[in-house]
């Protein structure tokens, strides 16, 4: 990972940030913070003199383009595009200049808005006609022509739409409202009512209606005849209105079809603007120059340099490796680099934590050991095949790439161990075991599990020691219980046990005792020893008393945890047995039933249960061994992920 500081002239700034967003190679950091930490040091040469002079007037870059309204418009257009069925292809071009995209957007949007407005208006008209129609239905038995009702001398006919809650209020206060109210239509949430108000009290009553949020529906004045006749003509009008709405809708669809490429281009352009704004907001500037800082992984440097070529040397960059930096407040981010086989397992590492920069990425180690453990616990050719298929489907059909990838690999491992154990869908009669039949060699399986566990733990120790050395952490790396001292102790214990079991003592017990006590003492005194080695003035950072209480518990914990961590691996063997055991139970049940069909069903059901239930248990137990027994030895996971600003062109 490199920290790259970029200085250039303001006119180039917009284009550069946009190209960076398209390239997706940089994670910006606050440039002012970087400048203040003096990592951002420009060489004092004649070429840089202008830039250096300007450093005195530096301020944070103020991003001023206001695109909130435009974004809403883009969203509307894209939303409209989704209503018509068009295959979206990635836009071939993108607009770099903000003003240009604003212009293009307003051109397209204005046209769209006119059509959309027309649709809205005519839908509104349709709705109001419908409301009138409903009201007329109520009056249909009145034989007096409507115009006479409308033009009454002393009363005014009114038609209102109001929410149910407000209708309740009007009813409650009916005695104080000088009007006759009759509700004519109810639908979810609202009520339509007719009111007859004395003309003298009209203003007062209308004010009350208005305060209850009543929406006035226009009573048609231009019709003549009884309510029934008018209802019929209103009905016709509704149909005409519907047709005109439909026509405009088609017109709009044609417009969208013609312009969908432009709309997609505009959408991407605004996305680019937002991404570049994200970069810009971290930058600093003076009147003439901009200053930008960010992390770029070494593998991306080439494409970054290529990108700079188009600026004809107008841009100055200072690249610094993480080791050369003295501002430790900005933590370098971590980027995973794994091949396609191990990549799915990154998600399992991430569940625990992101590796800190410089820490060994445990993905490969986890992938290999976890796959082996899973296969050993769940060794079956048939069931493994099911897992592979499930993984394939997850990956290709449902888009769960990580989970699918993990399933595929675990399934393959299960198949391999299935051949070693000679098991196909639980049955041990189909193929011969290449290596061992677990149920017939219970002790061997359990011991083998522990032996493998020891191997994994030793690897864990080594990785942990390497990590500590990289961090230059002598206290943990050399004297810690996960460091060299702990490791030597563990190896000693293992050798002693092997020599005792094989009755072939290498060294007298007294020597062993001295050996163990020596390393335990190192662990007990790790802090003072490390401080002496580093030449620090103090021996104990938090006082001797506290330190010894804590450290002596740690020693006891070391003994316990080494024992428990090792024994823990016995579960790998136990689950291999369990796997067979579960199937034995189902096959016993199957052989007890008399009908062939039932026994086949039981076997199928048994296999489903084994795959789902035991598969899940084994999955979790394996993860537990990784996280608790192994990660605690060597992995800290306190880093941050590398998140470049990147625009995803569909």
């Amino acid at each position: 990972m490199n920290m790259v500081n970029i200085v250039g002239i303001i006119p180039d700034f917009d284009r550069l940030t946009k190209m960076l967003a398209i390239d997706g190679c940089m994670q910006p950091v606050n440039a002012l913070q970087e400048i203040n930490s003096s990592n951002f040091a420009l060489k004092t040469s004649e070429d840089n003199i202008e830039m250096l002079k300007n450093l005195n007037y530096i301020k944070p870059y103020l991003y001023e383009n206001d695109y909130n309204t435009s974004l809403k418009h883009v969203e509307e257009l894209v939303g409209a595009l989704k209503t018509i069925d068009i295959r979206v292809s990635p836009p071939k071009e993108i607009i770099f200049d903000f003003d240009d995209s604003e212009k293009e957007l307003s051109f397209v949007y204005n046209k769209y808005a006119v059509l959309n407005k027309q649709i809205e208006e005519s839908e509104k008209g349709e709705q109001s006609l419908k409301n009138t129609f409903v009201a007329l239905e109520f009056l249909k038995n009145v034989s007096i022509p409507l115009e006479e009702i409308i033009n009454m001398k002393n009363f005014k006919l009114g038609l209102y739409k109001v929410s149910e809650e407000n209708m309740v209020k009007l009813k409650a206060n009916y005695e104080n409202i000088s009007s006759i109210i009759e509700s004519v239509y109810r639908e979810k949430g609202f009520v339509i009512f007719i009111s007859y108000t004395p003309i003298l009290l009209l203003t007062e009553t209308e004010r009350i209606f208005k305060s209850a949020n009543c929406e006035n529906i226009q009573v048609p004045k231009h019709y003549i005849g009884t309510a029934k006749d008018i209802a019929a003509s209103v009905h016709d009008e509704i149909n005409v209105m519907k047709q005109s709405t439909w026509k405009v809708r088609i017109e709009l669809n044609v417009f969208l079809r013609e312009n969908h490429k432009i709309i997609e281009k505009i959408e991407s352009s605004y996305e680019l603007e937002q991404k570049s704004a994200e970069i810009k907001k971290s930058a600093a500037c003076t009147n003439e120059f901009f200053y930008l800082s960010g992390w770029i992984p070494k593998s991306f440097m080439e494409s970054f340099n290529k990108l700079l070529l188009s600026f004809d040397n107008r841009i100055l960059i200072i690249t610094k490796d993480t080791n050369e930096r003295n501002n430790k407040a900005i933590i370098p981010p971590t980027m995973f680099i794994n091949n396609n086989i191990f990549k799915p397992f990154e998600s399992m590492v991430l569940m625990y934590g992101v590796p800190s920069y410089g820490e060994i990425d445990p993905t490969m180690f986890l992938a290999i050991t976890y796959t082996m453990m899973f296969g050993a616990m769940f060794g079956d050719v048939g069931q493994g095949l099911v897992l592979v298929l499930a993984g394939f489907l997850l990956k290709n059909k449902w888009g769960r790439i990580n989970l699918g990838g993990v399933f595929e690999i675990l399934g393959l491992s299960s198949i391999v161990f299935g051949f070693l154990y000679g098991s196909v869908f639980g049955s041990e009669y189909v193929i011969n075991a290449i290596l061992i039949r677990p149920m017939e060699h219970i002790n061997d399986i359990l011991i083998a599990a522990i032996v493998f566990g020891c191997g994994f733990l030793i690897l864990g120790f080594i990785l942990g020691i390497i990590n500590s050395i990289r961090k230059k952490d002598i206290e943990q790396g050399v004297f810690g219980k996960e460091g060299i001292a702990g490791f030597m102790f563990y190896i000693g214990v293992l050798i002693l046990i092997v020599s005792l079991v094989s009755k072939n003592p290498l060294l007298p017990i007294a020597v062993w005792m001295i050996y163990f006590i020596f390393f335990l003492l190192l662990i007990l005194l790790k802090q003072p020893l490390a401080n002496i080695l580093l030449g620090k003035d103090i021996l104990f950072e938090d006082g001797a008393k506290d330190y010894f209480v804590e450290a002596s518990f740690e020693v006891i914990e070391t003994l316990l945890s080494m024992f428990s961590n090792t024994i823990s691996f016995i579960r790998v063997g136990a689950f291999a047995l369990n796997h067979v055991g579960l199937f034995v139970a189902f096959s016993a049940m199957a052989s007890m039933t008399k009908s062939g069909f039932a026994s086949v069903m039981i076997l199928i059901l048994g296999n489903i249960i084994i795959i789902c239930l035991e598969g899940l248990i084994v999955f979790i137990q394996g993860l537990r061994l990784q996280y608790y027994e192994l990660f605690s030895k060597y992995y800290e996971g306190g880093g941050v992920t590398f998140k470049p600003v990147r625009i995803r062109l569909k």
Partner: protein
Amino acid sequence: MGSIVKFAAVNSKIKAIIGKSISREQYFKLQKCKDIKSIVKILKDETNYKKILEHCIIEKVNRVNLEMILHKNYISIYSKFINYFNGEYRKLIKILFIRWEIEDLKVIIRGKYLGDSKRQIENKIAFRSSLNTINYDYLIALKNVEDIIDALKGSIYYNSLKIFIKDIGGKNLFRIETELDFVYFMSIRKKLNHLDNENKEVGYRITGMEADLLNLGWIYRGKTFYKIPPEELFNYIIYNGFKFSKRKLIKLCYANDMVEFYNLIEKTPYAYIYENDDLACIEKREREFQKKYYKKILRENRNDISMVMSYIMFYMIEVRDIISIIEQKKYTGGISK
């Protein structure tokens, strides 16, 4: 059993946080402070606000950013509560947040009406968060109130506000605000209806009190300041029948003067609030009343939604109390200058 599973965790969490809220003595201490710096210092050294003020440099804190910090903290605690629930309860807790969103929306609408600048409005907004149902940036970028109402299309507010698009005046601003409060109570009530009877009842107990207070406030202000006729006033009421029957509310709206108004509420628990005919005093007593009310519910420690609902309000009162202490300092500080 079900309610224990549902509420035990969140209630213990709430009890733990209540233990850390500002005590009476600490309030006195804050009140005695001379300026905002010493207030921040006390908050930082002696109260549970230690954590959120950890990175603050006391000299640089001003009223606006302290308010922002307090509100941000409120939102983060609020968001945590959501994670304790699922289904209808989760929806309820989420919808309760619109009470604060509505406050912001009122600020935006009022600001646009008065022609405040974007920055001025931004400074007054307090509850921008992932819990919002509306896009603040877009609304603030718009030119006038009509556009804002139009832009609310698709949100829960639009249906109640669309009628105002045609005429927006000073008086309608009052109506827009009552309508928005009405939307809040209706949405909560709809959500409460989906809960089981026990929780529905306690939900009503809390929102009922809030609605009562709001109604009294509207009637009081409508009568004394805006001179709104009683028929209209009644239409602005949030009707729920907690301590006031429909009849009683009508009577309150039709009260001829403040004496009659007070006589009508004399026998209710709210009488104390309106004993004194001074708006500042009424607001203060309203807050005191709410605080006592929520405290009582919190003390009951029941295994239902009441704890969360009251704590959400209780905690906001604490935030408001701190803010008003600061405002007071600013005011008196100005005089001494």
